[in-house]
């Protein structure tokens, strides 16, 4: 096993073209994700955090810098980086829960036949959806759909799980429950996850390491540790520190997150 970082993002600048002009989403962003990290990218809207995740996913190519996974540059999307999106429509509506998870395994060539189904059912069980395995996505609640997407991502047993604000479209109670469950899953399997969010509370709760980005374009402001509870162990609050770092002097009266 290599001792270096699992994922290395090095001086990455990302741009995307709109109709009028070229927008720079991030400017020379760099960070390293270690094995079993719960690495959170946090920033206001417009800081390019989702674009970074898409670049790691291989959907966007950096105009500058490089992204290395296990020391190898990323070249297009691949099943070694399973993506969990924010949108509920990431599940194939014409497939049941079981088929949705199995589909990922078979179409990527990871497993076939009974083995694929068995592994799919194992991970569906992990997200507590076994009784719903034969249901179609449209009969599930939003939280359940996201659980299926997480099960699908985890079933790939990828090098890294990429989560793009997966709980943002959920109601507050469900979101809180999902965060808890995600941490429980992590305790069991210690997977590596790169998690994007705009919620400070969520970042503090989910992450063990938090990357703070500024907006327009996204640049790294800080990279801090989190213990999972909102306390830095020195009597201060992590979210207050994040607040100060992100908004500086203008923190007064600035809404914390959207």
């Amino acid at each position, binding site marked *: 096993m290599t001792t270096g970082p699992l994922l290395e993002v090095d001086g990455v600048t990302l741009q995307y073209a709109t109709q009028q002009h070229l927008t720079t989403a991030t400017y020379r962003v760099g960070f390293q994700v270690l094995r079993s990290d719960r690495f959170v990218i946090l920033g206001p809207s417009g800081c390019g955090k989702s674009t970074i995740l898409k670049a790691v*996913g291989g*959907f966007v190519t950096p105009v500058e810098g490089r992204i290395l996974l296990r020391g190898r540059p990323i070249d297009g999307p691949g099943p070694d980086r399973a993506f969990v999106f924010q949108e509920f429509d990431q599940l194939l*509506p014409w497939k049941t829960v079981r088929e949705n998870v199995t589909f990922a395994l078979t179409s990527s060539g990871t497993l076939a036949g009974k083995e694929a189904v068995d592994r799919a059912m194992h991970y569906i069980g992990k997200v507590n959806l076994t009784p719903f395995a034969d249901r179609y996505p449209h009969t599930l609640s939003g939280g359940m759909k996201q659980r299926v997407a997480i099960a699908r991502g985890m079933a790939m047993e990828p090098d890294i799980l990429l989560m793009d604000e997966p709980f943002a479209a959920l109601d507050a109670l469900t979101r809180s429950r999902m965060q808890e469950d995600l941490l429980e899953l992590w305790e069991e399997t210690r997977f590596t996850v790169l998690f994007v969010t705009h919620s400070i509370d969520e970042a503090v709760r989910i992450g063990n390491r938090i990357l703070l980005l500024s907006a327009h374009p996204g640049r790294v402001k800080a990279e801090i540790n989190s213990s999972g509870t909102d306390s830095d162990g020195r009597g201060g609050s992590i979210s207050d520190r994040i607040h100060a770092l992100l908004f500086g002097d203008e923190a007064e009266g600035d809404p914390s997150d959207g």
Partner: protein
Amino acid sequence: MAETAGAPERPELFYEITDTVGEVAPRPVGGWRRYWDSATARKITLLAVLAVVWEGYGRWLDDALLFPTFSAAVGALASSIASGELPGAAAFTIQLLLKGYAAGLVLAAILTSVASVTRIGADFLETVASMFNPLPSIAMLPLALIWFGIGENAIIFVLIHAVLWAVALNAHAGCRSVSPTLRMVGLNYGLSPFGYIRRILLPGAFPSILTGLKVGWAFAWRTLIAAELVFGTTGGSGGLGWFIYNHRNQLNTANVFAGLLTVILFGLLVENLIFKSIENRTVRRWGMQA
């Protein structure tokens, strides 16, 4: 009442939820009410009322040439079926329809594939389809007769025109409406371009494709009956349109009604049996259409 007092303070309440929720018995519904709650029953009742009105008007008018009674039309339908004349005409029409429909679908599939792969193909489809789509297919018949002469080929040409644009346009729109998230999901799990088309694009676009198939079928059916009316028989045998036209010439109005009823029945049958059951098994089950 004091203005600033607000609601009085109450003690907080806590309950222990222990008892399981029992079966809630449905409210009993009377037989008549249950009958009337079924859409099929209501529609059958309406049809029966219409038949009675038709029968009454026919008897009151008492002119079999102008407006035969419902029972006379049904009788003509039964005897035409028994004599084999109507089934023969219907079979002729349907085999022609299937040929034209199938040819139209193949062309639509080719056109849509090209349109979803290349930009110029998409431009071509959008331009040509928007040009030809508003043109009633039956208007192409004179041209078809010049090109192909009197015969099956002219009719098939017109049918292709009826099916092609509706299906291709809908399928194309369906492919474009497949969400970018699903596209990324397909890429994420390493689907090949062909695998992506087969496993994501086609099922994702299926609601629109099905709409196209239905619209195309309806266009083809109307066009075919009209074409047969205009041009009668093709070498010996004729279809339903010819059946209707022929009996009008013989002033056999009850049989004209029998022909029209057959056209209606086939339309209903295909719409309600074939397309409905496809819909129930696919887009409805998947929740992609209410």
